[in-house]
């Protein structure tokens, strides 16, 4: 038995048997790790709120031989999402981060860049501003996973897109110019391409002071989601929830 300790973000829990919880953790040490928290349902005192989704914890777990499930020994809260008010829209935004990480990260493959991105984004999600950190998160996840296409030129003819209209399609990679756009394409506005460019050069905290209603970067988020969902080959439940949330 090897006892391991790592910073981690709780992604999901499922009830398992009578009183155990199956926990998916995004650990800094090993990436996504699934483990069992014994008796967590009944004696939650042992883990307290540490197993709530998107809690930033210090986890101790051990890997048992010939089993893919770790045994979660302890979880100490470093930062809880419940420290600030949990509104419906905030809960949906947090769940979106959890679902995307859970779906996209491979098992047991560490990624310090994704870990740092997640922490920074969660930090910005403490208040009422949600659409900015969500946009930043989706953009950077697409980039860090290696799915983000070039914004500057048409994938078909190579024409410069700066100063021109740009389009994307649900089933194709990259952006196209007006001449090469396929039927049923959507437009990615120059403003949103500018936002993406700025976000790729800056920290998420630098956007904290900017007023950011849902409409800002909405086409960019749709574009990014289409890419992400195409790669994980499924629709994200939380994306539909977020769409229904006003403002």
């Amino acid at each position, binding site marked *: 038995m090897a006892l391991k300790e790592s910073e981690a973000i709780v992604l*999901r829990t499922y009830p398992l*048997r*009578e009183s155990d919880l199956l926990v998916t953790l995004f650990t800094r040490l090993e990436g996504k790790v699934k483990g069992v928290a014994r008796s967590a*349902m*009944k004696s*939650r*005192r042992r*883990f*307290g*709120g*540490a*197993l*709530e*989704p*998107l809690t930033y914890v210090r986890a101790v777990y051990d890997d048992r031989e010939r089993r893919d499930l770790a045994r979660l020994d302890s979880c100490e809260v470093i930062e*809880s*999402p*419940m420290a600030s*008010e*949990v*509104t*419906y829209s*905030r*809960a*949906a935004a*947090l*769940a*979106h981060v*959890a*679902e995307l990480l859970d779906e996209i990260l491979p098992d047991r493959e560490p990624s310090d860049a994704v870990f740092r991105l997640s922490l920074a984004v969660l930090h910005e999600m403490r208040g009422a501003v949600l659409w900015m950190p969500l946009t930043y998160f989706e953009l950077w996840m697409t980039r860090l996973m290696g799915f983000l296409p070039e914004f500057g030129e048409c994938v078909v003819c190579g024409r410069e897109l700066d100063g021109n209209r740009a389009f994307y399609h649900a089933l194709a990679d990259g952006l196209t110019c007006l001449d090469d756009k396929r039927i049923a394409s959507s437009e990615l506005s120059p403003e949103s391409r500018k936002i993406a460019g700025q976000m790729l050069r800056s920290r998420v905290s630098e956007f904290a002071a900017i007023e950011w209603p849902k409409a800002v970067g909405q086409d960019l988020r749709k574009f990014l989601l289409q890419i992400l969902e195409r790669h994980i080959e499924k629709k994200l*439940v*939380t994306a*539909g*929830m977020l769409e*229904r949330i006003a403002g």
Partner: protein
Amino acid sequence: MSRFAEPMTRLIDELKKLPGIGNKSAQRLAFHILRSSADDAAALASAVQDLKAKLQLCTICNNITDVDPCVYCSSPTRNQKLVCVVEEPTNIASVEKTRHFNGVYHVLHGSISPLHGVGPEQLRIGNLLSRVSGGEIEEVILATNPTVEGEATATYLAQQLKRQGLRVTRIAMGFPVGSDIEYTDEVTMLKAMEGRREM
């Protein structure tokens, strides 16, 4: 090929659908039922059938009941102006255990859970809002679980209810964050009710 006769296999398959029952437990239970008297087996079967046939949701509070309205909603000795909102019917027993709550209930049958695609539309909130719009209710206590989902549900309900000029309170976090009301002892639950705060 199954190792058992067809009726046995069928019962085992049905028992396995129950929470916490694996293959081994299902076989053990099935053999127990096989060995028991015909009367006992019939009593079990009819109890299962009656459960579905005779129980329904209270049209006022959504509690599971065999009479509509349920015993709480129809009781002349309970304070009908004080409503305690819970996630599940089983949570009512936890509040009742305190013996200090004399109001009535409202059961949501779940909580807002974005990861499972459950928004406010999927919860039984409509009849709570129509209930309070009648003007008979003075206070609503939100006793959803102290989890992210329970909090999101309470925050959402508080917004909706306060628009109607009601006193809305939230039970205190006397019990640990992340816990489930169902597993809370009566002292903790009582403290949580007493320490409820204005929302």
